[in-house]
């Protein structure tokens, strides 16, 4: 390494370690975000508060309630005496679901045509849809159980056996834990945000404080300045990757099924895009605030259109097309596959190629704009 490059890198490191804010951004924020998103960004619906209006109040109705109680989807939070009371509980948001058992439940059950009403608060669709299928499933299981015991009691020696059974197995994430899906996303988001923001502000800071003018008149070449500026942040971002990866592994039990070398290699490749966008922002912005804003403008669509929170398959076609222009999309699909499935490079090659092309394109565009001059 030539001495100009190494002295820029050393200078940058000294400045990073002296600046408490930058240090916090690098060391504290990623771990904080991991825990925040690891816990908060979950679609797992558990313990939906359920209000019950049991007008039958019979052993049969209590058996039905027991079935709901047994599954941890619902928690019987209120037992009410009227429909009005039940309605007001849902209106006030204290209950998200309600079960109404009519007075003639036990009698009609004996006739084989009992009905119960299940009401869901649809204002949060993702909770409601999970709760809906859970409610139906629990009800059907209960009904099948009653049927089975009846047939058994009739003593005809028949066994209840549905003609088709679907035997489901979930691969890679058998318990369907959201964290296993979210945490790889967090890694991608942190890598992208940190490199883009830090690169942009590090370059703009030189301009804002006027130090760029001294740098310009030194024999440093533009390329050396760019590399010297971004290499420290690349190394720190990779360090963050490892920290978040292992914290996610030990705390949230996210599997790491591919080789660490491959994961870091791909992450470094992905960093090209983040660094490129940061560098590009630095050529547009004059102040650190402007640089931050510019980066945020690319960060938000990246997060929403990369499949980080919302599945891409569910988006309208137009948004799906746009998502192909978002580097984070490719990285997320790669890192999730690598961590959860443990496959080799060959299965992720198309995404890797896309990521490489993007990284190179953005970097080239930024480097072309980045001139070592004042005007």
């Amino acid at each position, binding site marked *: 390494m030539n001495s100009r490059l190494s*002295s820029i890198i050393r200078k940058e490191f000294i400045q990073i370690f002296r600046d408490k804010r930058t240090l916090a951004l690098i060391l504290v924020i990623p771990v904080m975000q991991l825990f925040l998103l690891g816990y908060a960004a979950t679609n797992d619906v558990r313990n939906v508060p359920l209000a019950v209006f049991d007008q039958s109040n019979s052993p049969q109705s209590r058996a039905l309630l027991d079935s709901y109680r047994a599954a941890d989807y619902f928690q019987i939070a209120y037992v009410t005496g009227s429909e009005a009371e039940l309605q007001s509980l849902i209106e006030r948001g204290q209950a998200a679901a309600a079960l109404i058992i009519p007075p003639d439940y036990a009698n009609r059950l004996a006739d084989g045509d009992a009905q119960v009403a299940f009401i869901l608060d649809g204002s949060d669709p993702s909770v409601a849809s999970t709760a809906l299928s859970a409610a139906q499933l629990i009800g059907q299981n209960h009904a099948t159980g009653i049927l089975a015991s009846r047939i058994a009691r009739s003593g005809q020696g028949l066994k209840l056996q549905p003609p088709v059974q679907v035997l489901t197995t979930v691969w890679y994430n058998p318990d369907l834990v959201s964290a296993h899906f979210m945490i790889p996303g967090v890694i991608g988001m942190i890598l992208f945000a940190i490199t883009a923001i830090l690169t942009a502000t590090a370059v703009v800071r030189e301009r804002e404080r006027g130090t760029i003018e001294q740098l310009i008149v030194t024999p440093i070449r533009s390329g050396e300045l760019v590399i010297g500026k971004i290499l420290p942040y690349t190394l720190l971002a990779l360090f963050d990757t490892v920290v978040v990866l292992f914290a996610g592994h030990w705390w949230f039990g996210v599997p790491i099924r591919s080789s660490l070398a491959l994961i870091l290699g791909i992450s470094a490749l992905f960093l090209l895009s983040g660094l490129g966008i940061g560098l590009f922002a630095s050529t547009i912005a004059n102040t650190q605030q402007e640089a931050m804003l510019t980066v945020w403008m690319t960060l938000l669509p990246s997060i929403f259109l990369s499949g980080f929170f919302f599945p891409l398959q569910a988006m309208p076609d137009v948004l799906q097309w746009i998502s192909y222009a978002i580097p984070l999309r490719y990285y997320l699909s790669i890192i999730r596959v690598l961590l959860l499935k443990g496959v080799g490079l060959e299965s992720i090659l198309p995404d890797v190629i896309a990521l490489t092309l993007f990284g190179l394109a953005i970097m080239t565009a930024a480097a072309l704009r980045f001139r070592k001059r*004042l*005007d």
Partner: protein
Amino acid sequence: MSIEALHLRKTFGHLAAVDDLSLTIPPGEIYGLVGADGAGKTTTMRLLCGALKADSGETRVCGFDVARQTEKAREQIGYLSQRFSLYEDLTVLENIRFFAEVRGLKPDEWYPRSMEILEFVGLADFKDRFAGQLSGGMKQKLGLASALVTRPKVLLLDEPTTGVDPVTRQDFWQLIIRLVSQPRLPNPELSNIESRVSVLISTPYMDEAARCHRVGFMRQGQLVAEGTPGELRSLLDGQILELRGSPLTEIRHLAADVEGVENVQAFGDRLHLRVMQGQAGAVGQSLPERIQAAGGTLVSLRPLPPTLEDVFIMLSAEGR
């Protein structure tokens, strides 16, 4: 020649910041660039070191074309920009080291060289202090030190003493004069005239301009006058009169109306009159009569040797 600039031109939008400027500075010369704010001094400096690209014209520094052999040319240049622009979160020594290394000093060279230069500017005792905690004058010295650390042949100093107290200004000038008079800092085999440092310094202070070997006056992006301080002063020989009398305010208005008087400036309890070439005698006759007629008292009216300040004001006024 240390600096050779020919027909430099630089426009921002449709404002010509530098307009057909040519400048030649030989080794060992201190050249002062003066002019009102916005006259184009800083832009000129930036063009000379290649921080800005000229629209047209040519600049050579120690023979290297700034546009084509930019990095070669810059190796010869030490530049101190107007706004203090070193790293405030690095120490004095770290700053010097950074600039020494990026400008090509080897790992075993930078330390003795940095200490030597810190010694030279008097900052050796402060080497571990953060640059942000230095006083204004010390910052400028640190800037000078980092510009000097690679022994450049050309120093470009953009208003290095603006906002600095008189004692520090004095120190600063002593450093510059020592720098130019000794054949580049200790390096005996290069002690011939060609190896001497030349300095281009811009300043708003006329007492500093008077210390330069040559002074160039800029107005609206052009170099409108150039010469030794003596040559520039002689532009106004016999045209400056000093007047004492009372009441001064009335006399001032009176004097301004007298034929042949171009400019009247108040200096405390006296006035400086600039009169047209060859009109000093006529003014010396008519003005006392007028003052008397108006009921004022004239204490004295005598010719003064012109100062650079007078020249500055005259040249600035010409443009309006």
